[in-house]
């Protein structure tokens, strides 16, 4: 490896920007769960997309082999990252492109704004990009007096509604067609007042709305799905043609891309362009993919820039257990199979990156000690569906458990006093140490029933246990414990049960009604 590090090891430098929960996940989830329209739209969408994905994935006889190749390619990219970045830079630059390096969100935003200003432009067209959303580029440009127009249909819907994306692939998945029509009628200048809620009519309205913008734009801002080190080529994968418009028509093209998006060679693209479309939209291939290498004289933008973004990626890379989160190709398959995501939606995660991948990537980028993100690794039931769906086989459940451990360690390190969790564990170890101790604890059970009240539900537990009841009620504890019941039933000379053939489990689970 050419990049063996000989200098002083530095502390990880974490990312900033739209990477944070705005409130703890359980709280946000609780609110979002109350939004029944959102849940209905999400449930429908994730089901549809899951079925489509399964159909096109099962069509390929070599799907598992592609996943294995994809994982190994990404692993080698991470191991060789410095060398590949330098190789990419040399190739992209040799063909007339300009590379900028940005340590964090703020630096990236400033670079983009100054490139736009150099062109004397006060507006740009944009093609859907998670990196620019992560760094809050649109908001920054607005402060600088530059208008950024999102051109992807879903992004346009979200932008017109002053809302936030809820899914990385279909950001307006939480809105149904009628809601979209209402937004267009309210926010789109010159829209046909007779507009119906037919998706085809809505798409046509978006086309008409953006056409002039595309044809006259001087500057476009994009993300990139892949970057090939051996040729200096960038790739954008899309459906609508808004990407092609942005990448072809304006004179100046500014792309913002995380440093982890590299692939070593042209032949690696054959793996990822089979994995990505099938995993994301459930299509054999997405309608359009554009590839460009620096500047092509006489064809497309002649002023081509790439901003390479760290913003916490090097910190994530420093976590040996967590670094494979950087393999993510943002297909969203893990979200669509996640039972937690399906019910809460993307907004509950706060960060640009929602769902299972967001639950690991956001805290890895910001650091688990970032107070705002430390509840994200708990936003999972560890069912493992995300791991099975992931085209590059990121072991999300393992990383979640690892980050939970980091979170607990970091909190313990912060305080001298034993936490409630520590005390609870101590108490449990005492209770479970002997049958006598446990018996004493069990005597307290009826107290719990008093706490539960007449509906026999406990809706608020005290202390740290409150986390459990924030999103669910628990039934009142039974009037007696299993051990108490067993002893009573087995005291000679008892009723028929004492015959010894009866299995206690055959009784209604637990003891019967009120003491």
């Amino acid at each position, binding site marked *: 490896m050419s990049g*063996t590090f000989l200098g002083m090891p530095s502390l990880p430098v974490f990312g900033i920007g739209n990477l944070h929960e705005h409130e703890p996940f359980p709280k946000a989830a609780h609110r979002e769960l109350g939004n029944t329209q959102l849940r209905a739209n999400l449930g429908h969408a994730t089901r549809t997309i899951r079925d489509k994905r399964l159909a096109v994935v099962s069509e390929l006889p070599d799907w598992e082999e592609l996943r294995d190749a994809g994982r190994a390619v990404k692993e080698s990219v991470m191991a060789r990252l410095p060398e590949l970045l330098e190789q990419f830079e040399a190739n992209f630059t040799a063909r007339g492109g300009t590379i900028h*390096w940005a340590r964090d969100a703020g630096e990236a935003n400033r670079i983009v704004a100054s490139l736009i200003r150099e062109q004397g432009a006060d507006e740009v067209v944009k093609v859907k990009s998670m990196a620019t959303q992560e760094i809050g580029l649109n908001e920054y440009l607005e402060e600088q007096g530059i208008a950024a127009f999102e051109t992807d249909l879903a992004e346009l819907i979200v932008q017109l509604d002053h809302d936030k994306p809820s899914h990385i692939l279909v950001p307006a998945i939480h809105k149904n067609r009628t809601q979209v029509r209402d937004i267009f009628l309210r926010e789109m200048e010159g829209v046909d007042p007779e507009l119906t809620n037919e998706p085809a009519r809505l798409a046509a309205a978006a086309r008409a709305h953006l056409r002039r913008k595309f044809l006259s734009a001087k500057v476009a801002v994009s993300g990139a799905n892949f970057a090939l080190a051996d040729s200096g080529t960038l790739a954008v994968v899309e459906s*609508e043609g808004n990407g092609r418009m942005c990448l*072809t*028509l304006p004179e100046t093209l500014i792309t913002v891309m995380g440093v982890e998006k590299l692939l070593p060679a042209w032949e690696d693209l054959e793996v990822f362009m089979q994995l990505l479309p099938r995993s994301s939209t459930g299509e054999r291939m997405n309608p359009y993919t554009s590839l460009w290498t620096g500047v092509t004289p006489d064809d497309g933008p002649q002023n081509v820039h790439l901003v390479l973004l760290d913003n916490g990626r090097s910190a994530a890379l420093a976590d040996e257990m967590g670094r494979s989160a950087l393999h993510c190709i943002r297909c969203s398959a893990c979200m669509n199979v996640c039972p937690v995501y399906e019910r809460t939606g993307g907004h509950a995660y706060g960060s640009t990156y929602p769902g299972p991948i967001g639950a690991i990537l956001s805290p890895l980028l910001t650091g688990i000690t970032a107070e705002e993100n430390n509840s994200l690794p708990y936003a999972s039931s560890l069912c493992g569906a995300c791991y099975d769906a992931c085209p590059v086989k990121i072991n999300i459940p393992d990383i979640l458990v690892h980050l939970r451990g980091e979170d607990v360690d970091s909190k313990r390190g912060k305080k001298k006093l034993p936490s409630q969790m520590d005390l609870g564990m101590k108490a449990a170890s005492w209770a479970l140490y002997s049958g006598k101790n446990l018996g004493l604890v069990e005597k307290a059970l009826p107290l719990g029933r008093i706490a539960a009240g007449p509906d026999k539900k406990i809706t608020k537990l005290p202390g740290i246990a409150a986390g459990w009841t924030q999103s669910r009620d628990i039934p009142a504890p039974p009037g007696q414990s299993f051990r108490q019941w067993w002893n009573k039933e087995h005291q000679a000379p008892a009723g028929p049960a004492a015959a010894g053939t009866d299995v206690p489990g055959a009784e209604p689970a637990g003891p019967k009604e009120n003491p």
Partner: protein
Amino acid sequence: MNARTEILDRIRSALRDAPAVPEVPRDYRRSSELGEDALIELLTDRLLDYKANVFVEDAAAVPQRLAALLEGTGRYAVPHGLAEALFAEADAHDGGSGRRVTDAPGHRLSVEELDGVDAVVTGSAVAVAETGTIVLDASPDQGRRVISLVPDRHICLVRAGDITTILPEALRRLDATRPQTWISGPSATSDIELERVEGVHGPRTLDVVIVRG
């Protein structure tokens, strides 16, 4: 320290455990042996699934097919590298090549001019039957990227000999550094309730003429 040095240093520092570089297992399909008829059938099936229109013609019948497709159309654009002879029939129909505008080095069509034409006719570099994908690489018979983007209808010629079965075979025939557009059907969106709608910003109609021989 400048940003470049600092980021590269951070990354090297992050990798100080010197993780192994794994061998990439390439056990997925990398070649196949479908015959021409099977390839044409598979590509046709996939393109129809994307709601493209597909026509399979012998080379000699292509001018006639183009004339039929262009019937009733106004002006249309072509790249300079596409053989004139392809349009002989179309010209015969309207008594000359008045409807045809050519994008050539030194005579570039402006975006406004392209916005004013009804259709564009181009060739293609390679196609992938399994995914229904046609790749344009800006060769002279395909032209600059913009000409196949702005007009609302794209008529695309695909030589049968350029059809591969799977993506890895197609990539081997392409040069990464040429500007490429991979097209799999007309532009589409599934952004509203995941219902696929053909036709947003790219050409809303895609006519594919597969040319045998």
